[in-house]
């Protein structure tokens, strides 16, 4: 059930749920929403894999997102030549668990890749994502050559009118977006929307044509079917690459949902910033690509351990 359907079908219930959710802290307080009907799930205090399992349970299971025989792309952040402890890349165990979960839901194949910033093969191996995703059965592919990308037009984009997108994304039935929660020196935070810069070839175009607008524009072309923000470790400063483990905070959090703007807004609050101050989140909200007003949503807050 989509957010819009939810509001239309049960405006009253939804409103009640949203109001109650304002009190916060009580786990699973939005009880008006039945199991599997939450818009957003936030989990804290567990291991990355366990938090994911809890979140998927609350969202109604992976079967809600992946149907039998579908091709899935799982898009982590593998941008940097850094080990998992540096929190520059998505948690490898989480990626492995997501891949397995897709197969359990009947996916015919699961592809994992990123268009990295640092030398790609070192990013893939030092992040441990290549190894763990492959062991879980995923096909891990390269993203470092222009020949892997096809041009698409972005009719609803304001600054981004066309761009080259990785063929695996173009061929996929389901796109699962798995960024890590981290600081970014220029956009303050790098979350789900920013992570999708890793499925296009020419990032330089983004940077020279209003970065924040381009990030939002891409969402008009392709909204991920599921966004999972890995906040097990959080890079609190010197992002997006980080300098050392001294930049990392053990947040032990995970946020998941369909609405990419909403998950980004929730993660921004966890990071300690206001979503209104993050240009690409604000722009996406204004363009109606999702909502950053969390009060409108039914949120399941789960505390573990």
């Amino acid at each position: 059930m989509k957010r819009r359907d939810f509001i239309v079908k049960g405006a009253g219930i939804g409103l009640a749920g949203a109001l109650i959710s304002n009190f916060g802290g009580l786990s699973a307080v939005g009880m008006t929403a039945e199991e599997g009907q939450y818009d957003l799930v936030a989990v804290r205090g567990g291991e990355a894999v366990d938090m994911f399992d809890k979140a998927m349970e609350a969202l109604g299971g992976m079967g809600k997102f992946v149907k039998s025989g579908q091709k899935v792309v799982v898009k982590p952040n593998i941008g940097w030549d850094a080990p998992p402890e540096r929190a520059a890349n998505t948690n490898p165990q989480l990626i492995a668990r997501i891949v397995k979960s897709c197969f359990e839901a009947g996916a015919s194949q699961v592809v994992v890749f990123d268009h990295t910033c640092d030398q790609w093969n070192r990013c893939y191996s030092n992040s441990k994502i290549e190894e763990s995703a492959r062991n879980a059965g995923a096909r891990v592919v390269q993203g470092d050559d222009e020949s892997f990308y096809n041009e698409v037009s972005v009719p609803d984009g304001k600054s981004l009118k066309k761009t080259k997108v990785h063929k695996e994304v173009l061929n996929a039935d389901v796109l699962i977006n798995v960024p890590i929660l981290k600081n970014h020196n220029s956009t303050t935070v790098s979350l789900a929307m920013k992570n999708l810069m890793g499925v296009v070839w020419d990032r330089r175009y983004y940077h020279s044509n209003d970065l924040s607008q381009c990030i939002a524009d891409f969402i008009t072309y392709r909204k991920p079917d599921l966004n999972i923000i890995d906040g097990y470790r959080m890079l609190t400063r010197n992002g997006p690459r980080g300098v050392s483990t001294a930049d990392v905070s053990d947040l032990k959090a995970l946020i998941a949902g369909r609405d990419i703007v909403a998950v980004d807004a929730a993660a921004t609050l966890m990071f300690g910033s206001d979503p209104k101050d993050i240009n690409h989140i604000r722009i996406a909200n204004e363009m109606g690509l999702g909502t950053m007003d969390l009060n409108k949503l039914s949120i399941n807050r789960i505390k573990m351990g």
Partner: protein
Amino acid sequence: MTLYRFLRKSRIIIASLIFILVFIIFNDLYEWIPSGIARTVLSFQFVPSLLTFLATFSLIAGGGFLLILLITLITGRVYCSIICPLGIMQDIINRISRYTSKKKRFFRFKKEYPVLRYTFLGIMIIALITGLGWITVWLDPYSIMGRAFTYLLKPLITWGNNMVAVPLFHSMNIYSFFHHTLLHPYVLPVILSLAITVAIGYFAWKRGRLFCNTICPVGTLLGIASRFSFFRVRFDRNKCTRCGKCAAICKSECINIKNYSVDNSRCVVCFNCLDVCPEAALSLRPPLKPAKTKSYLRTAEAAQESVGSHDSNRRKILLTFLAFLVGNRIYALKKNRMPENQKDLLINEKEHPVAPPGAGTIERFNNICTGCSLCVSACPTGVLQPALTEYGLAGFMQPHMDYLTNYCNFDCTKCGDVCPTEAILPLSLEDKHITQIGKAFFVKQNCIVFTDETDCGACSEHCPTKAVKMVPYKNGLLIPEVEQAICVGCGACEHACPVGAPFKAIYVDGNAVQQFAEKPVVKELKQQGPEEDFPF
């Protein structure tokens, strides 16, 4: 099998193995060869070893050349037959030439070209002593072969990898093979290597080891040594029937059957003549009586004066012409055609190019590097590219950090690990992390945040030490600021900057003298623990 047939076969096997080994080292797409093995194999290349010795004064690191001299004094120029990859390549070409030729081909005794030989040797010695690296680049046989491997053969190997190996292994679910970038970003080094390789190949096809015995200064130097070598190919006049089989097979064209003599200075001890002689009139043996020697040094000096200046002038003229081709003029033209809103951009004025980490000083580097391009081949990111005009004449074809192509991986020490001449000294990872090869300069006037008033920050994003950080500007925008003390000059910022070269808003100016940067100060972090609540 006779002894000489055994030696000849052994020579061919050893030479093939060494050639294949060097070939693999230069085409190590998957970094399978440990750097230590590459260094060991290449430590017996004469010029790189000599330069290593001059750089370190260590016989352990750079004693290979002495060993080769010693071997030459004992048995002659076996180096040229089994160690020098360029020599082996010429043998391969000549062998193909003889196999494919319809009529049987014979070598004939030819006189040497002493003026040319000793001129080139003289030029090389002067270049090595006074540190004219750009001359060494063109005369060292190993480096000529290295460039042929890097700029000509590696693209072929990469093509084969991308078109055949990757699809094949991926279809078998083996993923340790992957796609590599095929094309070289610069075409001039490819053209030059091709021209030189074709020229040498042509002479090898027609005349065997003519290059080794006319131009190659290592060949000439070892030739001098082999005049005194203990074991030499010698005639037994009593047995010889002057059938001419030996002279016909001698790729050095140095056997004169008319007066039963072998020019040992040109003989590369390939054992072909010894094996072919039906009368066993030729043998490799110690002298029966002390050999007479002549001094060729005076000839060399005289020849130097007459030919040397003319030759290097011509080279200078050619290089200057090339420099004009790729120099600032193109940029000036480009600027005239730029859109209105970019006319105010400032051109990046770089005082120095950026030498690879471990070069020490640019001057030292230019003196020692032979441009063999092994580092260019080994560099995983491709940031190392052969210099065209960057170092000036002194470093033509020596590698420099080309930040248009890529940037230096913070955690990589590959170039210093493989360099056979110590032009790039090996660095530990800790040292590499603080070796400052250049400093970043921010040009606010060119920056997207200033010109377009939109977010960017690509430079800061890529910076490994956060020497480039974003500070508040206006309207909630952030703009870069550089802290040069902790900058290592890796070029990540320059490469990532979306403004087109040469108008980058941030660029790295090389350090003429590389130094240690300060370590970034690590501030205590206020930990946000998992026990806290949801802020929404």
